[in-house]
């Protein structure tokens, strides 16, 4: 598809790096607060009740997610064809979807005490693995070869 106008983002050399900073701070907040709860489930770090801890940190997880989900699509808009065809980006989007669904279904249920406590450790490990793999996939966007558009 031909786009008849230039993305204003690409008019400024500073727009992209500033958005990236928001993106980094956002995911640090998201993964950081999620990890505190996951580590609690694994018996490391904070010792208060995991459900209460999750409830206390949830607004901060969400705040980080909003930062990421606002800055992310804007970064994407700077060069949509490249991202769309980039293998690492495709993997990242899939992982993001999985992580979000897992976070707000299974993990939330566990933290509300609706699942067997025996599942705490596996759920914590899956959560940590999913969220950190998103970071890896994100970084690799810049390091894999994108097919010519």
């Amino acid at each position: 598809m031909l786009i008849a106008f230039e993305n204003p983002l690409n008019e400024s050399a500073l727009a992209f790096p500033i958005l990236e900073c928001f993106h980094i701070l956002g995911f640090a907040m998201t993964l950081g607060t999620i990890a505190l709860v996951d580590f609690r489930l694994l018996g490391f770090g904070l010792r208060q009740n995991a459900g209460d801890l999750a409830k206390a940190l949830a607004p901060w997880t969400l705040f980080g997610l909003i930062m990421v989900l606002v800055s992310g699509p804007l970064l994407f808009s700077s060069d949509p064809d490249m991202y769309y065809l980039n293998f690492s980006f495709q993997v990242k989007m899939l992982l993001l979807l999985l992580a979000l669904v897992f976070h707000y279904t299974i993990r939330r249920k566990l933290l509300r005490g609706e699942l067997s406590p025996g599942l705490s450790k596996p759920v914590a490990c899956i959560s940590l693995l999913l969220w950190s793999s998103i970071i890896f996939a994100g970084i690799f966007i810049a390091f894999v070869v994108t097919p010519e558009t």
Partner: protein
Amino acid sequence: MSALELAQWIQSTGWASYLRMSAYVYPSILSSHLTGIALFAGAVLATDLRLLGVVMRNQPVSEVIDQLRWPKRIGFLIVATCGFLLASSKAEEYYYNTFFRIKLTLLVLVAVHALAFRGSVYNNAAALDQARRMPGKAKLAAALSLLLWTSIACVGRGIGYIEPPLDKLHAALTSLRATAEPR
């Protein structure tokens, strides 16, 4: 040995050269650096927000600080180890990098912050539990910590945006310049 010579020597070591030229090891360490940042950030954020009285107000400050001490240390160790490896692979180039220099300066300020507030805040948490209101010094420590770490993250991203001064780099190393740096 000058700082520049040290940077050139570090960059010329076998492992630094290997990292610089690797297709996947360099980005893997960069990813670990960022994952470590997130884990570390969680512990720092929770400590600072508790000091500011924003989260976990029903938990004693001393317990939050104590329980997050090791997660912070381990997180920092991951970030610092990966950071050192990344920097060493392009040490000569980064020697000239303004953002890299600012980042190192900010890290020195982190040490100053730790020294300045250790006695009155971080190692004095039992007294903070007793205080009816959080002392201004503790809140200041938390606010400065958030400001410092946020700046360090942003300045760190800036490092990748400065073009290496090819005319100044050691001739032999110029041709081996990093295969790919995002943007």
